[in-house]
């Protein structure tokens, strides 16, 4: 109970700090413009004349690749640079509570940005009768994907006091995890590697799990996958921050 209270207090402060600086607004505007541009102009959403959000969700892994590290880079790096981490970690709360509070705040922020894409649903309704299940699955998948990128970004943010380094590390890290299961990439790989190895590596990737959710299939295995990557990354964040204390 006290633990939950502390997570909420930390999370509230963090979420507010996004909106107290221009970061939040810049982020949301860029996200919406980028997703809109890619969906309508690159994928030709209207020209396809299909009440299907696949051309919209298709771009999310790539847009997140650029933007989620930007939203996560300050989480811990900024605390370390300004020294406020010394205040935070000497409060009567546990490290787990701080990590979770910050993580959920940033995740809620990303989900808020995602929610602002709702006009696209209106567009599909205009085009025909969309599959509500596929839309819900796509949004849930997208939110989980954002959370997973964010967990990676949380880890890289704890590793440095420099936000730029945190950003670049998160981007590279996410890119590797993304591309490992991306079809054009795996097909090159499949030309010479055995089938089990290709699918083994692909299983660690974000991509196949995201694709099945996009189809509206909410498979427990995908949810478990995302949850375990997040838990793993946050546990690693804990180890990194503890290492700083013990250093």
């Amino acid at each position, binding site marked *: 109970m006290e633990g939950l*209270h502390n997570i909420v207090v930390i999370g509230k*402060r963090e979420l507010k700090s996004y909106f107290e600086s221009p970061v939040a607004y810049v982020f949301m505007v860029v996200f919406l413009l980028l997703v809109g541009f890619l969906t309508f102009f690159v994928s030709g959403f209207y020209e396809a004349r299909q009440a299907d959000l696949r051309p919209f969700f298709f771009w999310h892994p790539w847009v997140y690749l650029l933007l989620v590290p930007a939203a996560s880079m300050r989480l811990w790096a900024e605390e370390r640079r*300004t020294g*406020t981490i*010394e205040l935070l*970690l*000497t409060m009567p709360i546990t490290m787990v509570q701080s990590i979770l509070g910050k993580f959920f705040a940033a995740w809620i922020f990303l989900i808020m940005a995602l929610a602002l894409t709702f006009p696209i649903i209106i567009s599909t309704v205009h085009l025909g009768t969309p599959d509500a299940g596929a839309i819900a699955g796509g949004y849930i998948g997208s939110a989980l994907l954002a959370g997973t990128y964010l967990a990676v970004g949380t880890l890289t943010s704890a590793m440095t006091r420099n936000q730029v380094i945190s950003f670049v590390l998160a981007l590279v890290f996410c890119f590797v995890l993304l591309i490992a299961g991306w079809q054009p990439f795996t097909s090159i790989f499949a030309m010479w590697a055995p089938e089990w190895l290709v699918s083994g590596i692909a299983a660690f990737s974000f991509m196949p799990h995201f694709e099945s959710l996009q189809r509206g299939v909410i498979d427990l295995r995908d949810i478990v996958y995302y949850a375990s990557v997040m838990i793993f990354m946050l546990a690693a964040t804990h180890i990194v921050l*503890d290492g700083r204390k013990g*250093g």
Partner: protein
Amino acid sequence: MLEVKNISKSYGPIDAVKDVSFSADQGEILGFLGPNGAGKSTTMRMITGFLTPSAGTAIVNGHDITVAPVAAKKLIGYLPENAPLYAEMTTTTFLRFVAELRGYSGRVRDQKVEEGISRCQLESVRRQPLGTLSKGFKQRVCMAQAIMHDPKVLIMDEPTDGLDPNQKHVVRNMIRDMAASMTIVVSTHILEEVDAICTRAIIISAGQLVANGTPDELRRKSSLHGAVELTLSDASSDTADSLRALPSADRVETERSRYIVYPGNQETLYSEVSAMARDKEWKVTGLRTLDGRLDDVFKQLTVGGDFSNVG
């Protein structure tokens, strides 16, 4: 009540803090002295649970910081060096945040925030973003955060550093006013501060504790302690030689018409000097026994121990 037991911190082969032990009771204001880089901040960071000690521990009213960190932290107030604050928050939102982390809610929380604002005189900056505040105000906001929950142990890392003399005075008065109900440990390298507020002082050098005592006790370690200072209006070249010849004198330092006779024997030095002055009919304008100076002790104990590359 704070007990620090054999606390140590090493970074690889470098010992930043080595086997430091001391304790302080309620009502005490313990001055924590040492050159820059001696390990003051590192020690304080271990006591407050920000750093994990390599060995040893700190115990706050029975709660071991390495075993029960949350219970111990509840009793500790901490003012870190340079008063770090969230730049985008205002004084009120920041104090409210801290109050919530300290477990206050609703009306009690608001009351704690108001108390902090009035105790630390922050009324004029209550709605101002912390990043725009002057050093003195930042220090006070951070102080308000540290004392909000009436801690049993208050740890302050150089609370008057970078403040102007008036602000220093305000902070010192606050520290003195709070002392009765808590244990205060305050690090500083300003020695006059020790005389102004501390009931006891410890000196740390190169990570090790080198002295622990009241300011008077420390002064007694000074080579100046018990020395006699004599000022004459008719000093001549052989005055120093005559003084040096006294049976209780060890050596004599001269500075124009002022002579400092270091004691071989403290008991009899003053009477011998005054007797000689009377016999030789010197025109004495000043004659006194010196207590010894803290900066002198500080220098004696810490010279050579300056590792400024260690936290």
